């Protein structure tokens, strides 16, 4: 899976450079995300501007990442949601659970 990781002083940014975040790659994504938490990262921004489609597996790993961050007193924020992904979040009401930003910079500014 195509993931670009960027380190900033406030948070690690994970750019998901895939069109889909679904059952096929959600496991891999989860492993990568968890490895950052385990190495001590507390704040992660996940940029989804390339993601056209997300299914329940994809949502599931974002939710577990969110919970993981909470238990470590950290944060998991999202940016660049396309329309289908956004409606998934609204349907499940997850848009009220996650902090969602239009762009990565907006997310970074929030710290």
């Amino acid at each position: 899976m195509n993931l670009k990781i960027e380190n900033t002083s406030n948070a690690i940014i994970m750019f998901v450079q895939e069109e889909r975040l679904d059952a096929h790659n959600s496991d891999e994504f989860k492993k990568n995300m968890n490895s950052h938490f385990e190495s001590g990262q507390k704040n992660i921004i996940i940029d989804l501007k390339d993601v056209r489609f997300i299914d329940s597996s994809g949502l599931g790993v974002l939710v577990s990442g969110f919970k993981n961050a909470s238990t470590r007193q950290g944060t998991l924020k999202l940016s660049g949601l396309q329309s289908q992904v956004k409606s998934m979040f609204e349907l499940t009401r997850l848009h009220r659970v996650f902090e969602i930003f239009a762009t990565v910079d907006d997310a970074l500014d929030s710290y």
Partner: protein
Amino acid sequence: MDPQPLLTLLLNSSIYIVVSLITTQSDNEQEQLRKFFGSTEQERRHAQPSEAKRLSKPLTIGSFQSLLTKFIGEDDAVKAINSYLGDRKIPGEGKISEFELPNLKRFTEKTLAASVGAAAASAIVDSFLSDMGTRMESVFNVFSSVKTSLDQSREALYVRLKSSEIINSTLDTQIIMADLLNLLLSEFKLDITQISLCDTQGHWTESSPDKMEVDANAVKGLNKEWQPYCRELIGSGLPLICNDTQLFAESMELPRTISQGILSCAHIPISRAGEKPVGVMSLYSKSIKGMFTKEFIELLSSLAGQLAQALVIAQEIEAKEQERLQKEKAILKNVVMQKEMEIAQQIQTSLLPEKAPQLPGIDIAGHCKSATHVGGDYYDFFVRTQDNLDLLIADVSGHSIGASLIMAEARTLLKQPDHAARTPAEILKSLNIQLYEDLTRTELFISMFYANYNLSSKMLTYANAGHNPPIILRKGSSRFEKLDADGLIIGVMPDIDFEQQEVELHTGDVIIFYTDGLTEATSAEDEQFGVERLCSHLLEYRALPASRIIDAYYDAIARHTGSDEQQDDISIIVIKISEP
């Protein structure tokens, strides 16, 4: 000069040499001959540079006997000639008739063949016959010195044969190495032999013969001393030959070698032609200096080469075996996974209601079409009282046995009778609290739409935990409404509140509850079925009985995706309000 098995070389070249010596004899070539056979110091001393010139002699029995003597020794030659003659008596000086000659020739060839091989024997006898005189004699004297090296080469041949046997008898490299070392110990009267293999990480493993009568610690000590030089050997690929340990000890640290009485030793790299050595064969002698002659080293190197080949082959076989095992493991894993999916599906199917309740004033149907090896949808009906019906439709986020079991747990919790007293919002709240830990642990979540229908009041009360809102089509209208209430999917927060809504239903109203498998069913052109299509089809099907409406949807989806195979579970509940 090509290092080839000595005997073959000997055979080929003896013919060649005989012929070439006959044709262009010179002292130079005699010298070459000696070098060619690589005779030892001892041999060089014994081989006379034959200057002796003899007068031609007539062909007599005696001359044949002399010929034989040169190769098999006097006693045997006499015996052989006597056995040939049998009862006949031809005096040693007696000329041989032309009559007799072919037989005697054949006999001599046969006798010689036992010692030098058929081809050489034939060549020798032929040349003996064709050219008598000084040249032949000097040739044969040189050939006599060949006898000593023939003894040597006979020994070499034996060792080669034995080692081939050893190497080909088993794939167990440990046995090969031990047997090979035993062979070297016994055949060459060595005192210590050892093979050290070096792996790619630079770790050494040692093998010793079992018939060695030396203390293991002593051998360890020797190894330590020579190891740095052996390491270099791995790099250079050249044998390290020490024919006088005392001499070497002047410039190298060899206290243990000297104290154990080692007089000469050699370390031969174990490698295939042109490849990096995989180890070292070490040989030590306490009996003589100068043991490791050029031919001996050649023989040992050739054995080492054979060993290298055997080791490489054993390695390759091992690697293939590993590959095969990995493949088997992967296949097995796949089979296990398939089985798990089957079980998940079976669990899921067992949770679903067998048939929809029959109640006055409401036509209900429900169905779940599972995708293969995918599970997660759940729907159910609970007739609480004859007036009260609960229905729900849900979707768990994963597709595994774990997901099915969570669903089973949810169903058990929902079936509890005390839920009859609770509202949909309260039920979802309670379910969320009860399932939160398990859902966190399994990293799953559940979306669920829960409704209660009162048949008398025709009130539908509902709450929604992040599920696709059902669509209602009112009688006589073509307008669609979504039945939505605010609520987060279950399993994200430990305790949350759910909004509750209620709506009055009328005769002729149709409601469809569904899971995302329906709206997300994708066509070959990558287009989703979608909510709009769902609504327009409802208009089309509204007059049909509930179960037929469901069938119609499945058909429509199959047409849309263009295949029978499903990407996800598709669950549908349809209720139609009618006159009681």
